[in-house]
């Protein structure tokens, strides 16, 4: 995967300018930067959910699995049903293996609405395994996980990388991946528009 000179915007304001990196199979890249720097925006741009203002994201088609802040878990379905749905959408199997890998075996028939926040997150991360896709885009994957679960997910991630997968991770905490490269986004911060330069529809209407 290659990202060349990508600029992306959130809410009409350019937040990142000229971000470039490459990601080879077996590599992990950790995105860092203060809140609001545009980590989520960059991940959504790479995932193709929003267009880049400038620059190019080139990657083989159908290789991405995106995991955002929301887990995509349906409250009235059981844990196994939620996973089986995503596996079917991606034409894959391996639901039992994914449940085991994220330590959800005991909860498989529990309705997702009765899960704790951490258990829900584990289910959301187990979904990545059943997509069977090589490139994982992870947006704060460890939110509401306890330290054991973080270690568990770190192990899953290492296994994924060892099998030739790749991961782009926005996170603030250490996932136990010493080999992962770190990309600090602070230097790519777009210059803030100077006062009076930004024009919104309201200002135009007033004029």
């Amino acid at each position, binding site marked *: 995967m290659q990202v060349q000179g990508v600029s992306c915007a959130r809410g009409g304001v350019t937040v990142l300018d000229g971000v470039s990196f490459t990601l080879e199979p077996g590599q992990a890249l950790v995105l860092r930067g203060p809140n609001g720097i545009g980590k989520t925006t960059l991940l959504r741009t790479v*995932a193709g959910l929003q267009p880049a203002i400038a620059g190019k994201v080139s990657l083989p088609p159908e290789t991405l699995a995106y995991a*955002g802040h929301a887990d995509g878990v349906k409250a009235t379905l059981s844990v196994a049903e939620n996973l089986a749905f995503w596996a079917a*959408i991606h034409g894959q199997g391996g639901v039992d293996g994914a449940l085991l890998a994220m330590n959800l075996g005991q909860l498989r028939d529990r309705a997702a609405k009765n899960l704790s926040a951490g258990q829900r997150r584990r289910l959301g991360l187990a979904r990545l395994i059943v997509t069977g896709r090589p490139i994982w885009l992870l947006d704060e994957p460890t939110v509401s996980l306890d330290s054991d679960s973080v270690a568990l997910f770190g192990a899953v991630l290492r296994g994924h990388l060892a099998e030739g997968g790749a991961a782009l991770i926005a996170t603030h905490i250490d996932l136990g991946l010493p080999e992962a490269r770190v990309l600090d986004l602070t230097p790519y911060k777009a210059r803030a528009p100077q006062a009076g330069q930004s024009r919104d529809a309201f200002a135009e209407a007033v004029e």
Partner: protein
Amino acid sequence: MIALILRDLRLAIRSGGGFGLGLAFFLLVVVLVPLGVGPEPATLAKIAPGILWVGALLSCLLSLDRIFALDFEDGSLDLLATAPMPLEGVVAAKTLAHWLVTGLPLTLAAPVLAVLLNLPGQGYSWLVASLALGTPALSMIGVFGASLTVGLKRGGLLLSLLVLPLYVPTLIFGAEAVRRGAMGMEAGTPLLLMAGITAGSVALLPFASAAAIRVNLR
């Protein structure tokens, strides 16, 4: 695609709202109208086609804002947009699921409820035929409206305003077909026009809806 349809049906049954809501609303409209209008059989027979169609249309409208809003809130829509299935396919699957949950039960319940409105005997087959051909258009146009308003908080009002004018041709031709059928006149023309609207919207609107969702996910 089948997995998505099955999931939506399962969600509709489990959350209780889906199946029951539209049907219960239809029942209420049809039961309340004779109480409001009065019991004269001739009057009721005259307004029956219109009431049945308006009732079906409003029950359909009732469940539209949930189609994409729930998937948007819990992040499923983002994940579906990055899944191997094209977004047009997602739209088509969700439309079919919506029709199975609302349009189909309405079509099946309508002849039973038509008895309450004293619909003349020869109108029953036209009623079922017109609803069976017309409700897919209601679902499809509704899904299009829902994809235009996905991501808006409290988009329900805007959705109704967007969708209602688009529902009018289907309503006019559908009710006209039943009225003509009930009076023993030739009813094929309005039925065919309505079928044309259905075919056109099912062919074109999935693409428009998918484009609208892509814009709204940004």
